[in-house]
């Protein structure tokens, strides 16, 4: 048994896991903080919505699409000067978070927009008929009604971010992906590869289960 995992330094694995969790938590937080308002804005500017504006919607849509169509591995490298400007380094957890946020925010914003579109227009109309302001419509009706959809969007985004953190290992971000690439791939240490893969798999499973439970809890069906 121990011969099978001869190359494994469990402390190293623990540190890498912690790095992955930090990158995930930090980037998810900023992604939601930036992506939620962006998604709401996309929704409001969309056709036949409260602030329907064809030009502004097209422009914002274009930006989101461009960022989404850029392969993440390229974004990681292109972003390096900007990352250094923001965090002072392009390495480690701090260096990974800006590209992760920029990569995931447009994706998350689109999911939020879709979740908001699922809200019955009649509900918006009903709240309007009560004399609600646009802010009240968003806070008291749109977001609570779309909550299960938004939670599902956060779950999908978190899982996407897990795979992004693994890619960020390529540019020296640390974490489980970095371990898998440096030891598992470059040094042919298959056991390290297996352990990191299993850990990533477990992480994704936990995220998905947590998300599903929250969606069920808030669905009120």
């Amino acid at each position, binding site marked *: 048994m121990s011969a099978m995992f001869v190359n494994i330094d469990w402390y190293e694995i623990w540190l890498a896991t912690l790095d992955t969790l930090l990158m995930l938590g930090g980037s998810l937080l900023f992604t939601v903080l930036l992506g939620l308002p962006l998604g709401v804005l996309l929704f409001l500017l969309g056709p036949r919505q409260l602030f329907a504006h064809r030009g502004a919607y097209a422009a914002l849509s274009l930006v989101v699409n461009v960022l989404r169509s850029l392969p993440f591995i390229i974004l990681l490298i292109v972003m390096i000067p900007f990352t250094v400007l923001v965090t002072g380094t392009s390495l480690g957890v701090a260096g990974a978070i800006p590209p992760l946020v920029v990569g995931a925010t447009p994706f998350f914003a689109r999911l939020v927009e879709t979740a908001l579109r699922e809200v019955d227009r009649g509900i918006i109309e*009903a709240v309007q008929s009560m*004399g609600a302001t646009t802010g009240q419509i968003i806070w008291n009706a749109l977001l609570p009604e779309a909550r299960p959809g938004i939670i599902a969007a956060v779950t999908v985004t978190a899982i996407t971010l897990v795979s992004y953190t693994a890619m960020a290992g390529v540019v020296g971000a640390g974490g489980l992906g970095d371990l898998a690439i440096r030891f598992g791939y470059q040094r042919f240490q298959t056991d390290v590869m297996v352990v990191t893969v299993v850990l990533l798999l477990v992480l994704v499973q936990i995220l998905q289960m947590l998300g599903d439970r929250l969606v069920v809890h808030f669905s009120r069906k």
Partner: protein
Amino acid sequence: MIEFQQVHKAYTVQGRQIPALQPTDLHVRRGEVFGLIGHSGAGKSTLLRLINRLEEPSGGRIIINGIEVTALDANGLRSFRRSVGMIFQHFNLLASKTVAENIAMPMKLAGGHGSADIAQRVRELLVRVGLSEHAQKYPAQLSGGQKQRVGIARALATGPDILLCDEATSALDPQTTAQVLQLLAEINRELGLTIVLITHEMDVIRRVCDRVGVMDGGVIVELGDVADVFLPPQHPTTISFVQESEDDDFVTDEDWQQVQGSIVRLTFLGESTYAPVLGRVARETGIDYSILAGRIGRIKDQPCGQLTVALSGSESQALAAREQLQAAGVTLEVIRA
């Protein structure tokens, strides 16, 4: 109370103007139940939404309670909307909030109500609509009729003096429809609320409305007291609504070939409905009659009946019978002389 002056509305669809409401004058009286009936696309939904400006008019003036609604800015419009409740065909309750939270919502949005005040008001409203035990349930746990009751309670929360009903019973079964209409009539009577409702069901108009407008192609083609508009119907659209709701006594000309004498339709309204008018007239004039079709019902609180009868006898007997029937307050239409 509600005054439309040359109000019209057209939608722009792909650069083309599609008229939804032709320039319309309308006056809804304080405290009445005013119904608008029309087939889909007749413009009734547009007209209803113009009242609280969920639809912006393309032109004309709307004056409600002395306020020129069409001239209000965004702020003014929001506070005006709190004096107008609205209920919907698909209820439009917030699925994420409990019954009590849904009812409390208009007050929360309006601001200026303490949470104790709101809780007290929600309790009162729940009692009024008969849902006290369901306060903590979510809409998905309620039946259609219960959901509409929540909708009504929510619409009443800010103490409006107008209630707009957008096909409020169209998604409900006949029994539930009757209960919801009864609740609306109760509210109208006890709170003195002015109700404007739109529907495509004759029965809704007959049960609760004082006055009715018949809409077709963005125009109100007939308007008046329900009994006057429907007994007998004049406009083709009105006639089609009456026929749809009375398919049981829809008699063809072929059937009438077999009967002797003249055929008349008699409309009884109010007290004459239950009076033995027809028998007395027959006895006194010596005419014979046979009933071909008929129904007795109610228009709101007023009994009414319609009979299609064949009168056989001499020319002078028939004339005397018609005169006596009209003298007894029966409206008479000659279908075949």
